[in-house]
């Protein structure tokens, strides 16, 4: 395993190498994704097919810029891919495709699919006696999708302790979450921690706050700087 070729300071320049013809890059999720790959997830390009690896499911697929820059920094994909991203021969779309992108665990784009998929994968790993953790990143507006609430209720009722959801709260849910986002989870038996979505130490502490017996949610507040 060679050392990762890039550091955190390279992420924004890497993101800017990928030019989306319709939308500019958005970096609200960058620090959460970076902290997960840099400090939390037990996965490297060398263990990307290991059944016992930790898994990160980017359900909020439109944050592909930030995700690809972290995958590049951690050696999953070559930096040159960023220069041709979203083009006719590129493996990198504005929503990641797991059949095309090394390190992408799910194909995302339509909202509300990552958490139910993660519930299934957590159950499947448990059935095989595999002790791995799953981290799912969704947005506060994505939380509107009813499929998330099906999964939140079920994961809580069955104590899926291998599951951690990070809700990136950039205040974009049209009707807000009166009473707080965390209450949607804690009502079903999840543990919850709020954090600043830019502070790496705080993110790490919030993510590690799970007790392993209940599913855990981290509400991370951040808005895009670019």
């Amino acid at each position, binding site marked *: 395993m060679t050392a990762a070729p890039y550091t955190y300071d390279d992420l924004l320049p890497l993101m800017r190498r990928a030019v989306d013809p319709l939308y500019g890059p958005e970096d609200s999720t960058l620090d959460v994704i970076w902290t997960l790959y840099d400090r939390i997830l037990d996965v490297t390009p060398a263990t990307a097919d290991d*059944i016992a690896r930790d898994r990160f499911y980017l359900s909020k697929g439109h944050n592909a810029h930030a995700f690809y820059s972290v995958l590049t920094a951690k050696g999953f994909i070559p930096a040159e891919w960023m220069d041709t991203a979203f083009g006719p021969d590129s493996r990198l779309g504005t929503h990641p*495709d*797991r*059949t095309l992108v090394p390190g992408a*665990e*799910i*194909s995302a*784009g*339509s909202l*509300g*699919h990552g*958490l*139910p*998929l*993660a*519930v*299934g*994968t*957590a*159950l*499947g*790993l*448990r*059935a*095989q006696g595999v002790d791995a953790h799953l981290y799912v990143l969704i947005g506060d507006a994505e939380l509107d999708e*009813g*499929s998330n609430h*099906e*999964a939140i*209720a*079920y994961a809580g*009722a069955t104590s899926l302790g291998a599951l951690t959801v990070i809700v990136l709260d950039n205040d974009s849910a049209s009707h807000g979450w009166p009473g707080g986002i965390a209450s949607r989870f804690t009502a079903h038996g999840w543990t919850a921690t709020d954090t600043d979505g830019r502070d790496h130490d705080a993110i790490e502490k919030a993510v590690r706050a799970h007790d392993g017996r209940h599913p855990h949610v981290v509400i991370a507040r951040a808005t895009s700087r670019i």
Partner: protein
Amino acid sequence: MTTTATRAMRDVFLDTTAALIDENPRVALVLADISSGVPQVVRAAKAHPDRVINVGIREALMVGTGGGLAIAGLRPIVHSYAPFLVERAYEQIKLDFEHQGVGGILVSIGASYDRAAAGYTHFSPADVSLFDNLPGEWIVHVPGHPGEVEGPLREAAATDDRVYMRLSIAANGVPRETGGKLLPVKDGDGPLVIAVGSTLDAVLAAAEGTGWRVAYANTVRPFDTEGLRAMAGRDVVIVEPYHEGTSAHVLSEALADRPHRLLSIGVKRVDLHLYGSAADHDRHHGLDAASLSARIGAFAR
């Protein structure tokens, strides 16, 4: 469509699935309450709590969970009432199985109008054509008898294919072994009439005393186009227990290089707002023997 079998397709499906869960550590059953209280499922859940998963009445989660299990390397069997499995969770079928590049076995009950008295909310005549709109090479089984369920299910469990099994309480009098091919059932010098699944007995009753040739299919995707080309003359009829014309594009393409006439018979695209029995609805849609006799007879003249 007649209802004669004493042990229904669903019973055979659940017996076989419980046995598969015992035999194969990859097989998992995912439910949304429906069928969760059936004794063989209760037993299987007790013996293998990690692989018998009832998510409650949450069909989007049910199918998403199936996809997630497949990503983890398991072989999910996802089962519910047809409209809730296929229509309510259609995007999950498209994205959580097919687009992720993983396989699974989806098994429905209820068919087009098994529980006619329950009304339109419980009807699923569009299911097979919905799978036709997915590019992911789904294998579609439409068994016509409970005895035609176990073989394809065991075969499916041993692969990573994407498979849909459409179970019904409607059944023919005897099971038939097709091996996925078009099976000749009656010879003659008239049109080739292909009966799909539980429509066969009504087709055979209508064909009595005629020159129609009758063939039987219980695997409709992939359709046995080789068998079709070998058997078909100029006139071809297909009778399907779901939306009329569902297989027309497959048959037309298979016969595109030769002059032919095709008559498609199936469930009409209409919300009748009617209850009653499945036999009543067979008549409403022209799938009873008398209606088939009249319509195919007119086409054959």
